[in-house]
């Protein structure tokens, strides 16, 4: 609790990180209260061809799309998709990556090397490319995007936790608890994990931004949630044939993606400075 209030105090001091946190808060509120905040909640599924491609105005804050749906309302609902995809995919990556990294870091055996080699191979392909390959094979749906992102992103946490575990392993307090006969599980969960938690939190925050961008790329390529889902990447993709006349069509969802990713990056940077100034220096070595 002390740490939490410390982080909170520092966040309030660091204005940039605070902006990030506020943007994320806004995103979450938007997703929760989308039905209340939106002006045309029915437009997620309904079409109004007579009102198609209207510019921004009082009736439609961000204009309407090719189906005559209100872009503002669709973006609000899109926040739900974005959050769902990012949170589940990242949670899965953390749940896969952290235990693998802990085990491989704690035990020094051929299996640790093998596990790290496998994660290296995953890291050896650009994430977007791997995610495209997986999502393409599985077919377009939100579930498959989540699956593709989880499979693509877990090695980041495995690598990080592995390196951090190896480095705290030689600390006196870890050696002491091993010498006192604590079981490996106990050492890993009660002693190592709390000590590397801050790195994991920072990595996770920054990872959210990256994941959202990749998810948007999948949506843009038509590999995300199928139409008429109000997925932000898909909306931008749809807008292309109506440029340059319907400039608002692409603008609004792009800004939405930008703000959200920016929010996570700013918060991640801020958290990194607060929690672990060491990471910045060591990050150049942990390729």
């Amino acid at each position, binding site marked *: 609790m002390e740490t939490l209030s410390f982080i909170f105090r520092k966040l309030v001091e660091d204005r940039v990180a605070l902006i990030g946190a506020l943007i994320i808060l806004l995103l979450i509120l938007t997703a929760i209260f989308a039905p209340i905040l939106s002006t045309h909640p029915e437009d997620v599924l309904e079409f109004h061809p007579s009102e198609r491609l209207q510019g921004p105005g009082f009736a439609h804050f961000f204009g309407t799309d090719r189906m005559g749906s209100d872009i503002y309302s669709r973006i609000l609902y899109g926040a739900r998709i974005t959050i769902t995809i990012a949170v589940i995919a990242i949670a899965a990556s953390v749940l896969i990556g952290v235990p693998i990294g802990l085990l491989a870091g704690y035990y020094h055996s051929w299996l640790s090397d093998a596990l790290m*080699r*496998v994660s*290296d*191979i*995953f890291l*050896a*392909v*650009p*994430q*977007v*490319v*791997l995610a*495209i*390959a*997986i999502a*393409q*094979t*599985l*077919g377009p749906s939100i579930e498959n995007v989540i699956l593709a992102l989880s499979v693509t992103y877990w090695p980041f946490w495995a690598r990080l936790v592995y390196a951090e575990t190896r480095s705290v392993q030689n600390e006196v307090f870890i050696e002491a608890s091993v010498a006192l006969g604590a079981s490996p599980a106990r050492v890993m969960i009660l002693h190592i994990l709390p000590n590397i938690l801050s790195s994991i939190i920072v990595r996770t925050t920054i990872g959210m*931004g990256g994941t959202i*961008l990749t998810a*948007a*790329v999948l949506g*843009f*390529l*038509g*590999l995300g949630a199928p139409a008429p889902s109000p997925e932000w*990447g898909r909306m*931008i*993709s749809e*807008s*292309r044939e109506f*440029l*340059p006349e319907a*400039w608002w069509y*692409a*603008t609004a*969802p*792009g800004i939405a*993606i*930008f703000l959200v*990713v*920016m929010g996570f*990056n*700013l918060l991640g*940077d801020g958290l990194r400075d607060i929690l672990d100034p060491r990471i*910045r*220096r060591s990050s*150049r*070595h942990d*390729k």
Partner: protein
Amino acid sequence: MPPGFTDTPVKLLVLILNRLFWFVPTVLGLIVITFVISHIIPADPVAFVAGDNATAEQIEALRRQLGLDQPMHIQLWRYIVAVLQGDFGVSLYTLRPISEDLSSRLPATLELTFVAVFVSALFGIPLGVISALERNSMLDHVLRIITVSGLAIASFWLAILFQLLFAMELGWTPLQGRVAGWGPDVVTGFFLIDSILMGDPETFWDVLSHMILPVMTLAFPALATIVRFTRAGVLEAINSNYVMYEEAMGMPRRVIVWKYVLRNALIGTVTQIGLIFGILIAGAVVVEAVFDWPGLGYYAVQSILQSDYNAIMGFTVVSGVIFIVVNLTVDVVHGFIDPRESR
């Protein structure tokens, strides 16, 4: 004469051999993963390719022709052997060899990527140095906003915005494509070089004008990364004891900054080139799609639309190998420029 003050330790050779040793299993692993991914398909690709009107016999024949009737491990083995020989099979859509498709498109992507790396380094390194030197100045703040945005902006959206502004509204640049007309005779496949070889300045400028928007789109996040790491590296170096020493000994400021500090800072930046290439290859997929740039990324997007699994596999393996080679090169270069690395 005094000797030149360098010597290349044997340890560097060990480093290179070590990286080369891991290159083979990494590439094999990449092929296996790609294969596994493309064979967890719920749908039957053959039935899809053969079309709705195909008879059961026709589907079966196509399946045999593509080798998809064999057990999984045999298919995997065949695939590995074939890929190692540069054979990615045939496109399920066009039935042309994928390796031909890929190799004819590779230069377009490489040209775009190289120019983007060049541009981002050309501007990113000096900007990073200046923003570190002028810390907390107006310029530093502006650059910080740009670098943070660079990593947060979706490249396909940026590409569309650039098109909207520079091509559609202002008409300063072509909207899409690589060249007007047929382009220069293919010698290297790099149109900039080919047009120079032809002695055709008109084509050269045309190719260049087509490159502006895609390069700007691609270079933006890469530039952000370079500025960010150069700035951090310069700041770290400039607060170091050796810079304090060099200042105390009255070495000229410009030599301290642009020789001593920059060399140290760039070591950190160079290690990020792997990361930057990752950004660029990933960016190329969508950027090429938006700009109709006839490279690997465009091909990949076409293959996605056509559900051409083989082609996607080929693209994944090739871009993975490019990425691995880049990282390997970066490691070796890093070993050369950072003497501490060759312990």
